[in-house]
C-alpha cells in the first residue's frame, strides 16, 4: 500500500468514526419523529398543532416580529420553538408542545 492510499484510508476511517456518535444520538432522540412525520398540512391527530398555529399563538401572547420558528425540544418534549423580536423590546422564546399545543416554556430577555 503506498502512502497516498494509506492517507486516504486513514481519512475515511477518521471521518467515519467522528460521525458515528451523532448518528447514534440522532437515532435515539427521534423515534417519535420517525414514526409520526410532523408536517403542517398532514391530517394531524387531535390536539397536534402545526408550526403556523404555534406562530399564531406566540404572536398573540407577544406581538412583534417572528425571527425564527422551528421544531425543537424542551426537557425531552418535542416542541415548536418560536422566537420573537417583541414590540416590547424583548426577545421572546416560546415552546409549544407539538402533540398537544401546550405552552412548555416562555422566556423573555
Amino acid at each position, binding site marked *: 500500500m503506498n502512502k497516498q492510499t494509506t492517507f486516504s484510508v486513514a481519512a475515511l476511517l477518521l471521518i467515519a468514526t467522528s460521525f458515528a456518535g451523532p448518528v447514534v444520538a440522532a437515532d435515539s432522540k427521534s423515534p417519535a419523529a420517525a414514526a409520526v412525520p410532523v408536517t403542517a398540512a398532514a391530517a394531524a391527530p387531535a390536539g397536534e398543532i402545526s408550526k403556523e398555529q404555534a406562530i399564531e399563538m406566540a404572536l398573540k401572547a407577544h406581538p412583534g416580529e417572528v425571527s425564527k420558528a422551528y421544531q425543537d425540544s424542551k426537557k*425531552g418534549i418535542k416542541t415548536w420553538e418560536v422566537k420573537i423580536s417583541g414590540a416590547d423590546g424583548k426577545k421572546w422564546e416560546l415552546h409549544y408542545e407539538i402533540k398537544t399545543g401546550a405552552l412548555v416554556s416562555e422566556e423573555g430577555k
Partner: protein
Amino acid sequence: MRAIDSTQIKVWDPFVRLFHWILLGAFCTAYFSEGEVFEGLQERLPGELLQGMHVWAGYAVAGLLLFRLWWGFIGPRHARFSDFVYRPGATLAYLKRVLTLTAPRHLGHNPAGGAMIVVLLLSLTATIVTGLMLYGADKGLGPLAGLLAETGSATIDGIAEAHEMATNATLLLVGAHLLGVVWESVLHRENLVRAMITGRKRA
C-alpha cells in the same frame, strides 16, 4: 507525482493532520451554526438545520478529542504528549526566547506549541462538556439528559454562560495559536501551515 526533496522528513503522521483539519472544520461549523456573530445569516437558514449542524459538529469534536487523547499515548513519536509536554518552567523560558527571537527550532512541537495544544484540548473539552450539559438540561437530549432532567432554569442559564465562555476562551487560544504559527514560521523560515498539510518538514 512531484519528486520529494530528500532533505524533507516526515514529522506529522496522517492522523495528527486529519485530526487538526477536521477539528478546525467541526469547530467552525459549530461556531457558525450558533455563534451570535453569524445571527444575520442564521436567520435565513432553517432552525432545524442549524441545530442539527451544531449538535453533529459538537459530537465530532468530542470524538476527535477522545481520539487525540488516545493517540497522544500510542501514536508515533511527534504525536505523543511525552514528545511535546514540557514543565511550565521550560515552557516559560522558551517563550522568553521566542520573544527575543532566539528560540531554537524544534522538529516536532516546540515547548510553547506543546503547551498551546494542551490548553486548546482543555478548553475544547470544557466547551464540549458544557455543551452536552446544556443539551441534556435544557432540551432533554443527549447522553446527560437523564442525569440533568431536573435542572432549573437559573442553572441552565449558568450552563449556557459557561458554554459561551469556554467557546470564547477557545477562540482566543486559536488566535494565539495562529500568531504563534506565523511567528515561528518567520523566525525559522519555514511554512508550518504547509507542514501540517503535507506532514513534512526540513530535516
